[in-house]
């Protein structure tokens, strides 16, 4: 069976700084993989390379077995690759409902229509509300995104990605910036994602990683240090030294 997403020997540098070095990564269908690594390891760069926001200097990206390395970001999205952003990228001046309707409209090609009214297709609105309902956002449907608390905005971010009906979903720190009292809302949503979607999650919180991921890839200074099951990673000496060790060290300072 072809993997949902394959990354082959991907390289990218900014000037002399190699931020992605020979990265290989595979997401099988329905995968639950976490990408971890210290700050500056190149995690978000890797996501940008996979989604096409950045072009790699060498290497390939395959989506369902098809080479998409040369495809534009939009083209990749239309083929079923969705992402959330580390920092919200939403239509802040529009209502939550409009955010969703627009996503569905672009997905189905409705937005090529200049003449029909946007509200005329009831099925789009219904689907948008379904998505909001599953994330418990219906009550906020008619609020402007910028009026929502940050935690709820993070949910809209995920709702948009899900409304794309992706086959591969990249979550870039979905709970970043959300107070811990609200973060469980987001993590529940992440845990309940459709098992058919292949998910790659970037996360700093190790509790989340170990709760969610079946496989973990550790990225250090742009290169894959190791990958394996959560147990493997937890018991890996190198990872402890480089990553968990660093965390422990930092903890020592505070304690």
């Amino acid at each position, binding site marked *: 069976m072809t993997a949902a997403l394959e990354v082959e020997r991907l390289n990218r540098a900014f000037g002399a700084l190699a931020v992605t070095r020979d990265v290989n990564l595979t997401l099988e269908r329905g995968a639950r993989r976490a990408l971890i690594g210290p700050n500056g390891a190149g995690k978000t760069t890797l996501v940008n390379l996979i989604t096409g926001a950045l072009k790699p200097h060498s290497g390939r990206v395959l989506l369902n077995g098809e080479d998409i390395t040369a495809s534009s970001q939009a*083209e990749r*999205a239309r083929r079923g690759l969705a992402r959330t952003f580390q920092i919200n990228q939403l239509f802040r001046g529009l209502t939550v409902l409009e955010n969703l309707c627009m996503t569905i409209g672009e997905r189905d090609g409705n*937005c*090529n229509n200049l003449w029909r009214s946007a509200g005329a297709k009831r099925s789009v609105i219904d689907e948008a509300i379904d998505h909001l309902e599953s994330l418990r956002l*219906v009550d906020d*449907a008619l609020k402007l995104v910028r009026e929502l608390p940050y935690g709820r905005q993070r949910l809209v971010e995920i709702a948009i990605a899900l409304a794309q009906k992706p086959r591969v979903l990249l979550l870039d720190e979905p709970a970043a910036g959300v107070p811990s009292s609200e973060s469980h809302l987001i993590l529940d949503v992440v845990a309940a994602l459709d098992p058919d979607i292949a998910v790659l999650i970037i996360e700093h919180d190790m509790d989340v990683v170990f709760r969610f991921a079946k496989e973990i890839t550790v990225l250090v200074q742009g290169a894959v240090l190791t990958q394996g099951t959560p147990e493997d990673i937890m018991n890996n000496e190198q990872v402890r030294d480089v990553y968990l060790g660093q965390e422990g060290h930092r903890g020592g300072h505070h304690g």
Partner: protein
Amino acid sequence: MAVSDIMSATSRERARERAAEYLLRRHRFRPAEALPWLIAIAVFFIFPDRMTFGSQVLIMVMFALSLDLILGYAGIVTLGHAAFFGIGAYTVGLAAARLQWSEPISGLFAAAIMAGIVGFITGWFLLRYRGLTLLMLTLATAIMLQETGNLRSDISGGYDGLPGLTFNPLFGKFDYDLYGHTYYLYVLAALAVVFYFVRRIVYSPFGQALTGIRENVRRMHAIGSPVHRRLVTVYTIAAAIAGVAGALFTQTNAYVTLTVFDFDNSAKVMVMLILGGTGRLYGAFVGAAVYMVLEDYFSKLSPTFWQFGIGLMLVLAVLFARRGVLGLFESVGQYLAERKKS
């Protein structure tokens, strides 16, 4: 099923309906939208001797409306919109002067097509850029077109322009009177058609996608929107409409000079739109009317210092009505509604 479950099920259903209702109704005509048209018709009866001026106001409304499509909705900032106004103006001007093509209505279509073509070609290249770069490139486009006209002054008439153009009577029947009554109604009818078209676009899924590009272009890429294609499409449409406005300008004045391509013209239409309020369709009406009426009034009041009045008005607008006159009305309305509540 517990009572609370049934309760929450019905309240959920209600929340759904309310949300859906909002989108279903949004594009419907509201009674207040008749107001500008009623005013335009009333003006025809109240100021029968100011119809020439009235036509010019309506033409600027159309020009500003075309800018609203790209600036207000898609968020494209341009300082070269006069390029398309000029193309339209010269299309009918040259057709009448050089080809003896003097039928006015077909002239409007020709102007729309020519301006649309230029919009498509320049948009294709320029809309890869944003911000200041785009500002400079659009400005340069208008200047280049103007200089091309100047270079071939044997055809264009240069800065002396094409004077004394004549156009056929409308539908072969209605000729032009000295006071411009026919023209006023002609321009008003053209504006109504264009407005209907623009309004459909703004409330269409395509129009929504434009606001998406304005609000967050990164997100649009991420949800698979062909952003460049959308921008080129709307730029072409706006160019065509600006072309129609330019054509009407030539037809109503019976002359055209290269000044239609002036930076002044691009800047003025942007000021009008911002003064009225961007991204709300009627901002073009309010802005163009307020600007031109005040300009007319000030220039009569003081032929030497009239620009001071315009400048003062703009300073006040920037200080107290940053979202334009319509934005100001909106804020006042909200304020009053809140006071009523409490």
